[in-house]
């Protein structure tokens, strides 16, 4: 087996500085999703499942074209379908590809208590290292986009890797390559921002979408996945895209002012208890994970 590797710039729950930080220059990769040219064909869903050899699951018809209600540990890429009527009664069928946003400031990584279970490569990809994952599920709390999903068989959490295996070899992610209309685009963050803004301007000037704009939320430091939306003021219409996502305050607290705690591996248990309280106070963990797993074949 070849040793394909990517350099890391952020590591979860790591004591001290990230080794080798700042010794190499690399550009940030970015996925641009133009929802205004998405046709909801699900090529990206299949390409993701095919490339990553994800096991098949069962689905049931639920009065929608959407494949399943939410992403799963073995289904990382999901188009969300929404029938939306504008104020003048015009029907829009909004389709948004949902997957890991690869935040510059990843809430999952911030929340993770296991050294090296979540890393951010120098190209911006946020990746889970399942070998180091302890299955605590804190990343799920930390993610403002509800992306990481727990597999109760392996007791690990999974999500989109932005096909880091492909990207490290100089290829584009599988979803990007498949996209028939080119509503998905891949490149440097700078280039994708430029393309996105150009398209949004065209939508405003020529296609009668005065509120068209680019979704690159600053609350998480910007994202490695950005959207062009017909109406950037109402991202919720696109299957619950949060308007102003932030890392949850609880996670911020213990990774910010309380970060020194993280350097003391000895008090890990204490932190665990604390975060466990924060994470699972409002709802039962078992209930959430078990309902997600219904009908799946792990």
């Amino acid at each position, binding site marked *: 087996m070849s040793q394909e590797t990517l350099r890391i710039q952020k590591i979860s729950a790591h004591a001290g500085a990230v080794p080798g930080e700042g010794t190499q220059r690399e550009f940030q990769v970015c996925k641009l999703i133009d929802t205004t040219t998405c046709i909801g064909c699900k090529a990206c869903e299949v390409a993701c499942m*095919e490339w990553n050899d994800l096991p098949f699951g069962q689905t049931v018809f639920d009065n929608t074209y959407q494949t399943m209600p939410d992403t799963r540990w073995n289904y990382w890429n999901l188009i969300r379908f929404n029938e939306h009527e504008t104020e003048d009664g015009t029907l829009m069928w909004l389709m948004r590809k949902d997957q890991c946003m690869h935040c510059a400031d990843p809430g999952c990584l911030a929340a993770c208590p296991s050294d090296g279970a979540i890393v951010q490569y120098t190209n911006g990809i946020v990746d889970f290292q399942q070998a180091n994952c302890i299955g605590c599920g804190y990343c799920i709390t930390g993610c403002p986009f509800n992306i990481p999903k727990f597999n109760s068989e392996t007791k690990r959490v999974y999500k989109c890797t932005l096909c880091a295996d492909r990207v490290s070899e100089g290829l584009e992610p599988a979803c990007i390559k498949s996209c028939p209309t080119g509503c998905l685009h891949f490149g440097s963050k700078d280039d994708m921002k430029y393309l996105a803004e150009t398209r949004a301007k065209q939508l405003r000037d020529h296609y009668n979408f005065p509120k068209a704009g680019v979704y690159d939320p600053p609350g998480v430091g910007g994202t490695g996945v950005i959207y062009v939306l017909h109406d950037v003021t109402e991202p919720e219409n696109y299957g619950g895209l949060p308007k102003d996502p932030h890392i949850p305050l609880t996670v911020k607290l213990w990774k910010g002012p309380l970060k020194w705690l993280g350097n003391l591996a000895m008090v890990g248990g204490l932190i665990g208890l604390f975060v466990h309280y924060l994470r699972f106070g409002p709802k039962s963990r078992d209930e959430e994970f078990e309902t997600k797993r219904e009908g799946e074949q792990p």
Partner: protein
Amino acid sequence: MNPSRRDFLKYTAVGGTAAAVFGFDLQPAYAQLRTLKIARASETRSTCPYCAVGCGTIIYTIGDRAKNVTAQVVHVEGDPDHPTNRGTLCPKGSSLQQEIMNDRRLLKPQVRRPGATDWQDISWDDALNEIAARVKKTRDDTFIEKDAAGHTVNRLESLAWIGGCTDTNEFNYLVVKAMHALGVVHLENQARV
């Protein structure tokens, strides 16, 4: 999904030690990734068999075409050079790997005899001999040489051929050639419907 394929390389432990001693570290941290599954696979350029966009595909099979390997398809993706699809594929094209490597494929000739309630196996030779004999008998019994007006028609109305949507041009040519030679006029194809 096999988590072991995504092992985190423990360079960080080494780096961590260095950092503890010197306060800084030049040995960068890496994470091991899943191996690129098509890295040494063989590539075959093909065309998607579904709609008439005719997307170029690359079929990746294991092995380097050495004699002792039975090729298995590990991945199919779009051909980036193809002017029409430029590497893209739709959800059907993206699932072609499962179309080829599918455990529902038919693997042996079968026959269902009159009145039978199930299939039984038959050898290729027996199947083809029986089919040829039936076609000939049907033709000999029902071939029409002249119509009511006495015009030569030389046609066979009792045998039908229905051809599929994914038949190549060359296969279609052979079929039309052979069927016309037999006089078949009920000659149709998915193209009609």
